[in-house]
């Protein structure tokens, strides 16, 4: 497969996964903003801190402003990570690799692009139609993932797409987890209630699984288990790392390059670092370190992966 096309498929799926995660977080915060519960001291802060480059002062001033945040996150041209800009970037990557993605996938991305560019979209976000817009976009992302699964052939392109998708997902899970543990100093023995953790779990599509899997008291440590160590949770750190490992195995199957072995070892160490972290005896400080180190190492892996496979210029 052409390196440039592999690069395009990798980033197409990173951008779409980022859009998906961001919309899920936005949807969660928007819906919960109507509850006005007392413990909501963050508002849209976790979303804005991870997905935007806004200053702390700016975030502080808008973290409860529904209309501003909706427009900024969904369709602001100045926001590099707005849904609109991410879809544009995803479409550009799809265009560059159009001969390797299916017609169905291309047409879906293309229809999302046209929707995001419809001139009346910003106005809708100022009205009660805002929720309809978010719901439609969430469904579009679900549909994207479905079309990806059902129509795309399982070759090299699939491997690059999947690795891109799961790197992005893993980074989102870690960052969102940090956003909810940092304000409580990573206190694993704290007594934050389910209302507090519900935001994080809904943002990661893991609320229902959490309710079904864990008992109803002392949530902090159990949330850590769910988002980092639960192998049945599709957004957990360990699940995403294992999937990346599977696709790396496919990529490296017929590749004897020493650089490939080095990269495989690098990823193996990262996966082992998480897999062999002792969850039961994890301290507050260790939790902070695990999240930080995993994020840094995964970011470095993504850079090295790109250098090895996509250095076509």
């Amino acid at each position, binding site marked *: *497969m*052409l*390196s*440039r*096309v*592999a690069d395009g498929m990798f980033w197409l799926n990173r951008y779409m996964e980022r859009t998906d995660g961001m919309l899920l977080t936005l949807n969660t915060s928007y819906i919960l903003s109507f509850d006005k519960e007392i413990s909501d001291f963050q508002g849209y802060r976790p979303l804005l801190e991870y997905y935007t480059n806004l200053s702390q002062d700016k975030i502080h001033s808008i973290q409860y402003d529904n209309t501003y945040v909706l427009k900024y996150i969904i369709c602001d*041209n100045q926001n590099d990570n707005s849904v609109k800009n991410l879809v*544009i970037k995803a479409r*550009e990557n799809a*265009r*560059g690799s*159009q*001969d390797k993605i299916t*017609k169905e996938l*291309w*047409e879906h991305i*293309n*229809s999302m692009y*046209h929707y995001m*560019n419809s001139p009346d979209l910003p106005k809708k976000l100022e009205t009660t139609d805002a929720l309809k817009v978010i719901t439609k976009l969430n469904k579009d992302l679900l549909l994207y993932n479905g079309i990806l699964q059902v129509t795309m052939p399982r070759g*090299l392109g699939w491997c*690059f797409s999947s690795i891109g998708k799961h790197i992005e997902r893993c980074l989102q899970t870690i960052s969102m987890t940090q956003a909810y543990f940092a304000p409580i100093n990573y206190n694993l023995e704290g007594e934050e209630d389910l209302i507090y953790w519900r935001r994080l779990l809904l943002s990661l599509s893991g609320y229902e699984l959490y309710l079904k899997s864990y008992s109803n008291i002392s949530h902090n440590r159990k949330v850590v288990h769910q988002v980092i160590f639960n192998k049945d949770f599709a957004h957990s750190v360990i699940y995403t790392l294992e999937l990346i490992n599977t696709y790396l195995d496919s*990529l490296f199957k*017929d*590749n004897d390059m020493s650089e490939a072995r080095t990269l495989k070892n690098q990823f193996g160490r990262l996966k082992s670092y998480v897999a062999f972290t002792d969850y039961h005896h994890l301290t507050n400080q260790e939790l902070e370190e695990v999240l930080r180190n995993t994020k840094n190492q995964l970011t470095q892996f993504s850079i090295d992966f790109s250098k090895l*496979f996509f250095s*076509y*210029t």
Partner: protein
Amino acid sequence: MTKLAPSLTHSGWDEMFSKEGVRDSYSQVFKTLQKLSHKNLTNKQKQASDLFMNQGITFTVYSDDTNGIERIFPFDIIPRIITQKDWQEVESGIKQRLLALNLFLEDIYNEQNIVKEGIIPAGLIASCPHYIQEVQGIKVPHNIHVHIAGIDLIRGAKGEFYVLEDNLRCPSGVSYMLENREITKRIFPDMLSSNHVSMVSNYPMIFHSILVSLSPRNVSNPNVVLLTPGVYNSAYYEHTYLARQMGIPLVEGRDLVVNNSKVYMKTTSGLQQVDVIYRRLDDEYLDPLVFKPDSTLGVPGLISAYRQGNVALVNAVGNGVADDKAIYAYVPDMIKYYLNQEPILKNVPTYRMENLDERELVFANMENMVIKETNQSGGYGMIMGNKATQEELDNAKIEITKTPRNFIAQPIIQLSTVPCLIDGQLKLRHVDLRPYALCGPKGVQIVPGGLTRVALTEGSLVVNSSQGGGSKDTWIIK
């Protein structure tokens, strides 16, 4: 029910209507259309536009908004129909023409007998900007220089076909021929089958087998690629479409590298040798070491690999010398010289401005002439004498006198018309026809169809998409 028949207000040929009424070839289509209401027809037109938009068959218009506006190439849902009898004439005429043009290119880049025997002036070849000295003496696989050609045809007042242009470099538009048919299948499924319309969808398969046959390496599965200038090229959709339909990689110049006079593509598992390149890049951008040194679209060293026969290029380099507008006038002479035959398809009478007598004749009849720059295409560099202001005509005369080699003139021919659905009503608009011919070791093959281009502005004779033209599905009925 719709009152359909528009009144014939011009003296030219209309494809659907004669003075006696609806032509036989259109009778079924006309009946079907009559049963549809205005609203129904308009809905079908909208449905077609939406299908084009959703499939990304668009081009981008850039304005102050940096993201640009996506537009579709206008498609008119009323098909253009050509009878089998007319098609046979077109088919045999194009085959004859391409045979001669291929022989001409082989000759001009080798012995140049046609020049030595005084059939074509040497100065005309030497002054042609598309004559590529760098490939003089080259031997191409099977002596085929033109593998794909888009021959522009028009119909005169009596319905007779004329060749307007031979596009022998990177003819575009074939994806619209194919997509137009797919759209028609969705909006008029019954009409297609009841009219026994010939199939065009085998075009990519025929073309792919020709590409494979050109491989310089004797391997069972040669690497064939389509070289595109990139995503910002206005024909990028077509490049992706053809690559997908043929199952070949779509590469950009930066994906390729030349080493030891062989071309390789950069893949995730290392370099892979490339055997055949269907390039959609003009000659001057192909290799910065030979042509434009600042071209970032091409591949350094590509011409060296090509000259050594390590890679085949489709179309061959230097074909522009055969579709130059001044040399076009000599194609009937080429047919006589190489094939000893009379041309089946006529040329539009063409006046070369280098010839003083012809120039004076044109200057005296400017309002009846279309003036064309020989090195322009796409409807650019063209002055319609009957539409231009006196100042424009005077300026044209000055320019022609300064550099006569750069201009030709042709009498304005009223292109034939076909009814189009415009604002919910059928209105007559001028059209041309571009069939696509494929040349391989087994000969010339032409899928029965083509791209009908429409001048959507009332009275306009300019059909180019870059000048606001649209297109129609073209049916060859059995």
